[in-house]
Protein backbone atom coordinates (compact mmCIF):
# COMPACT_ATOMS: atom_id res chain seq x y z
CA UNK A 1 0.00 0.00 0.00
CA UNK A 2 1.45 3.42 -0.90
CA UNK A 3 2.26 5.66 2.06
CA UNK A 4 -0.15 8.46 0.99
CA UNK A 5 -3.05 6.00 0.80
CA UNK A 6 -2.31 4.72 4.30
CA UNK A 7 -2.33 8.28 5.63
CA UNK A 8 -5.53 9.00 3.72
CA UNK A 9 -7.30 5.99 5.21
CA UNK A 10 -6.18 6.82 8.79
CA UNK A 11 -7.26 10.46 8.41
CA UNK A 12 -10.60 9.46 6.84
CA UNK A 13 -11.36 7.08 9.72
CA UNK A 14 -10.41 9.78 12.21
CA UNK A 15 -12.68 12.34 10.49
CA UNK A 16 -15.54 9.86 10.38
CA UNK A 17 -15.22 9.18 14.11
CA UNK A 18 -15.10 12.92 14.82
CA UNK A 19 -18.09 13.65 12.60
CA UNK A 20 -20.08 10.87 14.26
CA UNK A 21 -19.25 12.17 17.74
CA UNK A 22 -20.22 15.75 16.94
CA UNK A 23 -23.38 14.66 15.07
CA UNK A 24 -24.56 12.60 18.04
CA UNK A 25 -24.01 15.62 20.30
CA UNK A 26 -26.39 17.68 18.20
CA UNK A 27 -24.05 20.67 18.39
CA UNK A 28 -25.30 24.17 17.76
CA UNK A 29 -22.28 25.53 15.95
CA UNK A 30 -21.81 29.23 16.20
CA UNK A 31 -18.78 29.95 14.02
CA UNK A 32 -20.04 33.39 13.02
CA UNK A 33 -19.42 34.97 16.42
CA UNK A 34 -15.96 33.47 16.70
CA UNK A 35 -15.07 34.67 13.20
CA UNK A 36 -15.49 38.22 14.45
CA UNK A 37 -12.65 37.58 16.85
CA UNK A 38 -10.24 36.27 14.19
CA UNK A 39 -7.79 39.11 14.87
CA UNK A 40 -7.41 37.91 18.48
CA UNK A 41 -6.58 34.39 17.28
CA UNK A 42 -4.14 35.70 14.73
CA UNK A 43 -2.33 37.97 17.22
CA UNK A 44 -2.22 35.22 19.85
CA UNK A 45 -0.84 32.74 17.33
CA UNK A 46 1.92 35.12 16.34
CA UNK A 47 2.75 35.78 19.98
CA UNK A 48 3.04 32.03 20.52
CA UNK A 49 5.37 31.79 17.50
CA UNK A 50 7.57 34.59 18.87
CA UNK A 51 7.61 33.25 22.44
CA UNK A 52 8.44 29.75 21.16
CA UNK A 53 11.25 30.99 18.93
CA UNK A 54 12.79 33.02 21.76
CA UNK A 55 12.47 30.11 24.21
CA UNK A 56 13.80 27.67 21.62
CA UNK A 57 17.05 29.65 21.25
CA UNK A 58 17.46 30.37 24.95
CA UNK A 59 16.65 26.83 26.07
CA UNK A 60 19.11 25.35 23.56
CA UNK A 61 21.87 27.56 24.97
CA UNK A 62 20.89 26.66 28.53
CA UNK A 63 20.68 22.98 27.57
CA UNK A 64 24.16 22.88 25.98
CA UNK A 65 25.70 24.72 28.93
CA UNK A 66 24.00 22.50 31.51
CA UNK A 67 24.97 19.36 29.56
CA UNK A 68 28.63 20.41 29.65
CA UNK A 69 28.28 21.14 33.38
CA UNK A 70 26.71 17.72 33.98
CA UNK A 71 29.83 16.19 32.42
CA UNK A 72 32.23 18.41 34.35
CA UNK A 73 34.87 16.82 36.55
CA UNK A 74 34.45 19.62 39.10
CA UNK A 75 32.01 18.36 41.78
CA UNK A 76 30.49 21.78 42.52
CA UNK A 77 29.75 22.51 38.85
CA UNK A 78 28.32 19.06 38.29
CA UNK A 79 26.18 19.24 41.44
CA UNK A 80 24.77 22.66 40.47
CA UNK A 81 23.70 21.32 37.07
CA UNK A 82 22.27 18.13 38.55
CA UNK A 83 20.19 20.03 41.13
CA UNK A 84 18.90 22.37 38.41
CA UNK A 85 17.88 19.52 36.12
CA UNK A 86 16.19 17.44 38.80
CA UNK A 87 14.34 20.35 40.43
CA UNK A 88 12.98 21.60 37.11
CA UNK A 89 12.07 18.21 35.71
CA UNK A 90 10.47 17.14 38.96
CA UNK A 91 8.07 20.09 39.36
CA UNK A 92 5.16 21.32 37.21
CA UNK A 93 5.77 24.20 34.81
CA UNK A 94 2.65 25.83 36.24
CA UNK A 95 4.28 26.11 39.68
CA UNK A 96 7.53 27.36 38.17
CA UNK A 97 5.69 30.08 36.26
CA UNK A 98 3.77 31.22 39.33
CA UNK A 99 6.93 31.28 41.48
CA UNK A 100 8.89 32.94 38.67
CA UNK A 101 6.34 35.72 38.28
CA UNK A 102 4.76 36.22 41.69
CA UNK A 103 7.87 35.55 43.79
CA UNK A 104 11.10 36.04 41.85
CA UNK A 105 9.97 38.80 39.50
CA UNK A 106 8.09 40.51 42.32
CA UNK A 107 11.12 40.36 44.58
CA UNK A 108 13.19 41.92 41.80
CA UNK A 109 10.53 44.68 41.52
CA UNK A 110 9.89 43.88 37.85
CA UNK A 111 7.06 45.78 36.18
CA UNK A 112 4.06 44.16 34.50
CA UNK A 113 5.50 45.00 31.09
CA UNK A 114 8.33 42.55 31.81
CA UNK A 115 6.05 39.53 32.14
CA UNK A 116 6.96 38.47 28.60
CA UNK A 117 10.64 38.42 29.47
CA UNK A 118 9.97 36.45 32.65
CA UNK A 119 7.70 34.06 30.74
CA UNK A 120 10.36 33.32 28.12
CA UNK A 121 13.02 32.85 30.81
CA UNK A 122 10.95 30.43 32.91
CA UNK A 123 9.89 28.48 29.83
CA UNK A 124 13.52 28.33 28.66
CA UNK A 125 14.76 27.15 32.03
CA UNK A 126 12.04 24.51 32.02
CA UNK A 127 12.79 23.24 28.53
CA UNK A 128 16.55 23.68 29.05
CA UNK A 129 16.55 21.05 31.79
CA UNK A 130 15.15 18.47 29.36
CA UNK A 131 17.53 19.64 26.63
CA UNK A 132 20.45 19.24 29.06
CA UNK A 133 19.73 15.55 29.54
CA UNK A 134 19.25 15.06 25.80
CA UNK A 135 22.55 16.77 24.97
CA UNK A 136 24.39 14.95 27.75
CA UNK A 137 23.16 11.64 26.33
CA UNK A 138 24.35 12.70 22.86
CA UNK A 139 27.80 13.68 24.11
CA UNK A 140 28.12 10.47 26.16
CA UNK A 141 27.28 8.42 23.08
CA UNK A 142 30.45 9.50 21.26
CA UNK A 143 32.92 6.62 21.73
CA UNK A 144 36.14 7.31 23.63
CA UNK A 145 38.04 6.09 20.55
CA UNK A 146 36.81 9.10 18.58
CA UNK A 147 38.36 11.48 21.11
CA UNK A 148 41.58 9.45 21.01
CA UNK A 149 41.68 9.63 17.21
CA UNK A 150 41.08 13.36 17.32
CA UNK A 151 43.90 13.84 19.83
CA UNK A 152 46.18 11.53 17.85
CA UNK A 153 45.96 13.68 14.73
CA UNK A 154 46.74 16.75 16.85
CA UNK A 155 43.37 18.49 17.11
CA UNK A 156 42.93 20.93 20.00
CA UNK A 157 40.10 20.27 22.48
CA UNK A 158 37.94 22.95 20.82
CA UNK A 159 38.61 21.53 17.35
CA UNK A 160 37.73 18.08 18.69
CA UNK A 161 34.44 19.45 19.96
CA UNK A 162 33.61 21.36 16.78
CA UNK A 163 34.86 18.95 14.12
CA UNK A 164 34.36 15.54 15.71
CA UNK A 165 32.05 15.49 18.73
CA UNK A 166 29.30 17.99 17.93
CA UNK A 167 28.63 16.89 14.32
CA UNK A 168 28.09 13.34 15.58
CA UNK A 169 26.18 14.36 18.72
CA UNK A 170 23.79 16.57 16.72
CA UNK A 171 22.70 13.63 14.64
CA UNK A 172 22.12 11.52 17.74
CA UNK A 173 20.06 14.15 19.59
CA UNK A 174 18.12 15.52 16.62
CA UNK A 175 14.93 13.43 17.02
CA UNK A 176 14.76 14.03 20.77
CA UNK A 177 15.43 17.76 20.39
CA UNK A 178 12.67 18.05 17.80
CA UNK A 179 10.30 16.26 20.17
CA UNK A 180 11.31 18.62 22.95
CA UNK A 181 10.67 21.64 20.72
CA UNK A 182 7.19 20.37 19.92
CA UNK A 183 6.56 20.10 23.67
CA UNK A 184 7.97 23.59 24.16
CA UNK A 185 5.49 25.10 21.70
CA UNK A 186 2.57 23.44 23.44
CA UNK A 187 3.93 24.22 26.92
CA UNK A 188 4.00 27.90 25.99
CA UNK A 189 0.20 27.78 26.38
CA UNK A 190 0.75 27.75 30.15
CA UNK A 191 2.19 31.27 29.94
CA UNK A 192 -1.45 32.35 29.90
CA UNK A 193 -1.53 31.88 33.70
CA UNK A 194 0.68 34.93 34.12
CA UNK A 195 -1.53 36.86 31.71
CA UNK A 196 0.69 36.68 28.67
CA UNK A 197 -1.55 37.26 25.69
CA UNK A 198 -0.51 34.26 23.64
CA UNK A 199 -2.65 31.91 21.56
CA UNK A 200 -4.33 29.98 24.39
CA UNK A 201 -4.94 33.11 26.48
CA UNK A 202 -6.67 34.82 23.58
CA UNK A 203 -8.73 31.74 22.72
CA UNK A 204 -9.88 31.55 26.31
CA UNK A 205 -10.89 35.22 26.18
CA UNK A 206 -12.88 34.61 23.01
CA UNK A 207 -14.62 31.73 24.77
CA UNK A 208 -15.55 33.91 27.75
CA UNK A 209 -16.86 36.61 25.47
CA UNK A 210 -18.87 34.36 23.14
CA UNK A 211 -19.71 31.26 25.21
CA UNK A 212 -18.66 29.20 22.17
CA UNK A 213 -16.26 26.77 23.76
CA UNK A 214 -15.44 24.37 20.93
CA UNK A 215 -15.54 27.11 18.32
CA UNK A 216 -12.84 28.84 20.38
CA UNK A 217 -10.68 25.85 21.17
CA UNK A 218 -10.79 23.85 17.91
CA UNK A 219 -8.99 26.64 16.03
CA UNK A 220 -6.49 26.54 18.89
CA UNK A 221 -5.70 22.88 18.17
CA UNK A 222 -5.36 23.63 14.46
CA UNK A 223 -3.09 26.59 15.19
CA UNK A 224 -0.71 24.47 17.30
CA UNK A 225 -0.69 21.69 14.69
CA UNK A 226 0.25 24.29 12.08
CA UNK A 227 3.43 24.86 14.11
CA UNK A 228 4.24 21.36 15.32
CA UNK A 229 3.60 19.31 12.16
CA UNK A 230 6.10 21.25 9.99
CA UNK A 231 8.61 20.95 12.83
CA UNK A 232 8.21 17.17 12.91
CA UNK A 233 8.54 17.03 9.13
CA UNK A 234 11.67 19.18 9.26
CA UNK A 235 13.17 16.93 11.93
CA UNK A 236 12.52 13.79 9.86
CA UNK A 237 14.07 15.44 6.82
CA UNK A 238 17.17 16.52 8.78
CA UNK A 239 17.45 13.04 10.24
CA UNK A 240 17.53 11.53 6.75
CA UNK A 241 20.12 14.08 5.63
CA UNK A 242 22.46 13.40 8.54
CA UNK A 243 22.02 9.66 8.42
CA UNK A 244 25.08 7.48 8.32
CA UNK A 245 25.75 4.22 10.08
CA UNK A 246 28.16 4.21 12.99
CA UNK A 247 31.45 2.90 11.62
Amino acid at each position, binding site marked *: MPRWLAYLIVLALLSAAGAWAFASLDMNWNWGVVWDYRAAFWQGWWMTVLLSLASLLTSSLIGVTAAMMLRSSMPLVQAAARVYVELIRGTPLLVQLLIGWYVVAAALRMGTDQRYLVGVLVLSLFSGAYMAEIFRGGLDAIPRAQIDSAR*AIGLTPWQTLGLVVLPQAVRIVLPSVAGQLVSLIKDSSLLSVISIAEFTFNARNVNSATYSTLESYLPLAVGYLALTLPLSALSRWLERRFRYEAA
Partner: protein
Amino acid sequence: MNLVIHDLVQRFDDPRSRRSTTVLDGLSLATGEVQSLVLVGPSGGGKSTLLRILAGLDVPVTGSVTFEGVALPRDEESLRGYRRGVGTVFQAYNLFPHLTAMDNLLLPLVHVHGLTDTEARRRVAEPLERFGLTAHAHKRPAELSGGQKQRIAILRALVVQPRRLFLDEPTSALDPEMTGEVLDMIDDLKRSGTEFVLVTHEMGFARRVADEIAFIADGRVAAHAPAAEFLDRCRDPRVTSFLARTLHA
Protein backbone atom coordinates in the same frame (compact mmCIF):
# COMPACT_ATOMS: atom_id res chain seq x y z
CA MET B 1 65.02 5.74 15.18
CA ASN B 2 66.70 5.28 18.48
CA LEU B 3 64.39 4.78 21.44
CA VAL B 4 65.43 4.80 25.09
CA ILE B 5 62.85 4.13 27.81
CA HIS B 6 63.90 4.45 31.41
CA ASP B 7 62.02 3.08 34.43
CA LEU B 8 58.51 3.76 33.08
CA VAL B 9 55.66 3.44 35.57
CA GLN B 10 51.99 3.78 34.65
CA ARG B 11 49.08 3.34 37.02
CA PHE B 12 45.35 3.72 36.55
CA ASP B 13 43.09 4.67 39.43
CA ASP B 14 39.67 3.17 39.72
CA PRO B 15 37.68 5.91 41.48
CA ARG B 16 35.01 3.44 42.67
CA SER B 17 37.18 0.86 44.37
CA ARG B 18 39.85 3.48 45.19
CA ARG B 19 42.43 0.99 44.06
CA SER B 20 45.06 1.61 41.47
CA THR B 21 46.32 -0.90 38.97
CA THR B 22 49.96 -0.82 37.98
CA VAL B 23 50.16 -1.51 34.26
CA LEU B 24 53.77 -0.55 33.61
CA ASP B 25 56.08 -1.45 36.45
CA GLY B 26 59.47 0.14 35.89
CA LEU B 27 59.76 -0.72 32.20
CA SER B 28 63.11 0.03 30.56
CA LEU B 29 64.24 -0.54 26.98
CA ALA B 30 66.99 0.74 24.72
CA THR B 31 66.86 -0.01 21.01
CA GLY B 32 69.64 0.18 18.50
CA GLU B 33 69.28 2.37 15.43
CA VAL B 34 66.18 0.65 14.02
CA GLN B 35 63.52 1.39 11.45
CA SER B 36 60.88 -0.78 13.09
CA LEU B 37 60.25 -2.00 16.61
CA VAL B 38 57.57 -4.61 17.23
CA LEU B 39 56.00 -5.08 20.66
CA VAL B 40 54.55 -8.49 21.45
CA GLY B 41 53.33 -10.23 24.56
CA PRO B 42 50.28 -11.47 26.41
CA SER B 43 47.07 -9.43 26.65
CA GLY B 44 47.07 -7.10 29.62
CA GLY B 45 50.86 -7.11 29.75
CA GLY B 46 51.14 -3.39 29.02
CA LYS B 47 51.92 -3.22 25.27
CA SER B 48 49.09 -0.87 24.36
CA THR B 49 49.66 1.28 27.45
CA LEU B 50 53.30 1.65 26.44
CA LEU B 51 52.34 2.52 22.85
CA ARG B 52 49.93 5.21 24.04
CA ILE B 53 52.75 6.82 26.02
CA LEU B 54 55.14 6.59 23.07
CA ALA B 55 52.47 8.19 20.85
CA GLY B 56 52.09 11.09 23.28
CA LEU B 57 48.48 10.26 24.20
CA ASP B 58 49.09 9.43 27.86
CA VAL B 59 51.66 10.68 30.36
CA PRO B 60 53.39 8.11 32.57
CA VAL B 61 53.40 8.48 36.36
CA THR B 62 57.19 8.40 36.38
CA GLY B 63 60.00 7.50 34.02
CA SER B 64 61.27 8.92 30.76
CA VAL B 65 61.06 8.24 27.04
CA THR B 66 63.56 9.64 24.56
CA PHE B 67 63.52 9.35 20.79
CA GLU B 68 66.80 10.26 19.12
CA GLY B 69 67.96 11.67 22.46
CA VAL B 70 64.97 14.03 22.73
CA ALA B 71 62.75 13.44 25.77
CA LEU B 72 58.97 13.34 25.38
CA PRO B 73 57.34 16.35 27.06
CA ARG B 74 54.82 15.92 29.87
CA ASP B 75 52.50 18.92 29.42
CA GLU B 76 49.50 18.59 27.11
CA GLU B 77 50.37 21.62 24.97
CA SER B 78 53.83 20.29 24.05
CA LEU B 79 52.49 16.77 23.68
CA ARG B 80 49.96 18.02 21.13
CA GLY B 81 52.84 19.49 19.18
CA TYR B 82 54.61 16.14 19.42
CA ARG B 83 51.50 14.23 18.27
CA ARG B 84 51.25 16.46 15.21
CA GLY B 85 54.64 15.19 14.11
CA VAL B 86 53.81 11.48 14.46
CA GLY B 87 50.99 9.22 13.34
CA THR B 88 48.93 6.78 15.40
CA VAL B 89 46.54 4.03 14.31
CA PHE B 90 44.35 2.14 16.78
CA GLN B 91 42.69 -1.27 16.58
CA ALA B 92 39.41 0.14 15.28
CA TYR B 93 37.17 3.22 15.16
CA ASN B 94 39.96 5.43 13.86
CA LEU B 95 37.87 7.15 11.21
CA PHE B 96 35.28 9.80 11.89
CA PRO B 97 31.98 8.19 10.80
CA HIS B 98 30.30 11.46 9.76
CA LEU B 99 33.02 12.22 7.19
CA THR B 100 33.87 10.50 3.91
CA ALA B 101 37.20 8.70 3.60
CA MET B 102 38.50 11.71 1.64
CA ASP B 103 37.38 14.19 4.32
CA ASN B 104 38.96 12.00 6.98
CA LEU B 105 42.26 12.31 5.10
CA LEU B 106 41.90 16.05 4.52
CA LEU B 107 40.91 16.95 8.10
CA PRO B 108 44.37 16.83 9.73
CA LEU B 109 46.05 18.36 6.68
CA VAL B 110 43.68 21.34 6.58
CA HIS B 111 42.86 21.87 10.26
CA VAL B 112 46.14 20.85 11.90
CA HIS B 113 48.82 21.39 9.27
CA GLY B 114 47.37 24.46 7.59
CA LEU B 115 47.21 23.25 3.98
CA THR B 116 44.56 24.67 1.66
CA ASP B 117 41.89 22.28 0.44
CA THR B 118 43.54 22.14 -3.00
CA GLU B 119 47.01 21.45 -1.60
CA ALA B 120 45.60 18.76 0.70
CA ARG B 121 43.74 17.05 -2.16
CA ARG B 122 46.90 17.05 -4.24
CA ARG B 123 48.82 15.58 -1.31
CA VAL B 124 46.45 12.62 -0.80
CA ALA B 125 45.83 11.77 -4.48
CA GLU B 126 49.04 9.82 -5.07
CA PRO B 127 48.96 7.70 -1.86
CA LEU B 128 45.27 6.88 -2.44
CA GLU B 129 46.19 5.66 -5.92
CA ARG B 130 49.22 3.76 -4.70
CA PHE B 131 47.20 1.76 -2.16
CA GLY B 132 44.26 1.20 -4.49
CA LEU B 133 41.82 3.30 -2.46
CA THR B 134 40.92 6.07 -4.92
CA ALA B 135 37.62 4.42 -5.84
CA HIS B 136 36.58 4.41 -2.19
CA ALA B 137 37.53 7.99 -1.30
CA HIS B 138 33.98 9.32 -1.56
CA LYS B 139 32.53 6.69 0.79
CA ARG B 140 31.64 7.06 4.44
CA PRO B 141 33.38 4.62 6.83
CA ALA B 142 30.18 2.56 7.20
CA GLU B 143 30.38 1.76 3.46
CA LEU B 144 33.99 0.55 3.69
CA SER B 145 35.22 -2.92 4.63
CA GLY B 146 37.20 -3.31 7.84
CA GLY B 147 40.42 -3.61 5.87
CA GLN B 148 39.67 -0.51 3.80
CA LYS B 149 38.89 1.44 6.96
CA GLN B 150 42.22 0.51 8.53
CA ARG B 151 44.12 1.30 5.33
CA ILE B 152 42.46 4.73 5.16
CA ALA B 153 43.34 5.20 8.84
CA ILE B 154 46.99 4.34 8.16
CA LEU B 155 46.94 6.66 5.16
CA ARG B 156 45.52 9.48 7.28
CA ALA B 157 48.40 9.03 9.70
CA LEU B 158 50.85 8.91 6.79
CA VAL B 159 49.84 11.88 4.63
CA VAL B 160 50.93 14.42 7.24
CA GLN B 161 54.45 13.07 6.64
CA PRO B 162 55.10 12.03 10.23
CA ARG B 163 58.52 11.22 11.67
CA ARG B 164 57.19 7.78 12.64
CA LEU B 165 54.01 5.75 13.00
CA PHE B 166 52.56 4.01 16.05
CA LEU B 167 50.32 1.08 15.17
CA ASP B 168 48.32 -0.55 17.97
CA GLU B 169 47.20 -4.01 16.82
CA PRO B 170 45.92 -2.61 13.53
CA THR B 171 44.65 -6.00 12.35
CA SER B 172 43.25 -7.56 15.51
CA ALA B 173 39.67 -6.58 14.66
CA LEU B 174 39.87 -7.93 11.10
CA ASP B 175 39.21 -11.29 9.48
CA PRO B 176 42.20 -13.06 7.86
CA GLU B 177 41.64 -11.79 4.32
CA MET B 178 41.45 -8.16 5.41
CA THR B 179 44.35 -8.67 7.78
CA GLY B 180 46.39 -9.59 4.72
CA GLU B 181 45.69 -6.36 2.87
CA VAL B 182 46.59 -4.23 5.92
CA LEU B 183 49.77 -6.21 6.56
CA ASP B 184 50.74 -5.80 2.89
CA MET B 185 50.40 -2.06 3.33
CA ILE B 186 52.65 -2.10 6.42
CA ASP B 187 55.10 -4.27 4.48
CA ASP B 188 55.14 -1.60 1.82
CA LEU B 189 55.86 1.07 4.44
CA LYS B 190 58.74 -0.97 5.75
CA ARG B 191 60.27 -1.22 2.29
CA SER B 192 59.83 2.49 1.63
CA GLY B 193 61.70 3.38 4.82
CA THR B 194 58.91 4.57 7.14
CA GLU B 195 59.81 4.23 10.81
CA PHE B 196 57.24 2.59 13.04
CA VAL B 197 56.48 0.96 16.38
CA LEU B 198 53.93 -1.83 15.99
CA VAL B 199 51.97 -3.81 18.54
CA THR B 200 50.81 -7.08 17.01
CA HIS B 201 49.79 -10.67 17.64
CA GLU B 202 50.86 -11.78 14.17
CA MET B 203 54.21 -13.40 14.97
CA GLY B 204 54.87 -14.46 11.38
CA PHE B 205 54.38 -10.87 10.31
CA ALA B 206 56.56 -9.59 13.16
CA ARG B 207 59.40 -11.70 11.79
CA ARG B 208 58.94 -10.13 8.35
CA VAL B 209 58.86 -6.44 9.30
CA ALA B 210 60.57 -6.14 12.68
CA ASP B 211 64.13 -4.96 13.10
CA GLU B 212 63.85 -5.58 16.82
CA ILE B 213 61.20 -7.32 18.91
CA ALA B 214 60.42 -6.58 22.55
CA PHE B 215 58.36 -9.01 24.60
CA ILE B 216 56.31 -7.19 27.21
CA ALA B 217 54.71 -8.99 30.14
CA ASP B 218 53.63 -7.87 33.60
CA GLY B 219 54.52 -4.28 32.80
CA ARG B 220 58.16 -4.93 31.99
CA VAL B 221 60.32 -5.95 29.05
CA ALA B 222 60.81 -9.68 29.52
CA ALA B 223 62.94 -10.10 26.42
CA HIS B 224 64.28 -7.84 23.71
CA ALA B 225 66.43 -8.73 20.71
CA PRO B 226 66.84 -8.30 16.96
CA ALA B 227 63.95 -10.06 15.25
CA ALA B 228 65.63 -13.23 13.99
CA GLU B 229 67.50 -13.79 17.23
CA PHE B 230 64.36 -13.20 19.30
CA LEU B 231 62.30 -15.73 17.35
CA ASP B 232 64.95 -18.42 16.95
CA ARG B 233 67.11 -18.29 20.03
CA CYS B 234 65.16 -16.71 22.87
CA ARG B 235 65.26 -19.04 25.87
CA ASP B 236 63.03 -17.10 28.25
CA PRO B 237 60.28 -19.59 29.21
CA ARG B 238 57.54 -16.94 29.05
CA VAL B 239 58.56 -16.11 25.49
CA THR B 240 58.94 -19.69 24.30
CA SER B 241 55.54 -20.72 25.67
CA PHE B 242 53.97 -17.56 24.16
CA LEU B 243 55.56 -18.31 20.80
CA ALA B 244 54.48 -21.94 20.96
CA ARG B 245 50.90 -20.85 21.57
CA THR B 246 50.73 -18.10 18.95
CA LEU B 247 52.69 -19.81 16.19
CA HIS B 248 50.80 -23.07 16.37
CA ALA B 249 47.40 -21.71 17.26
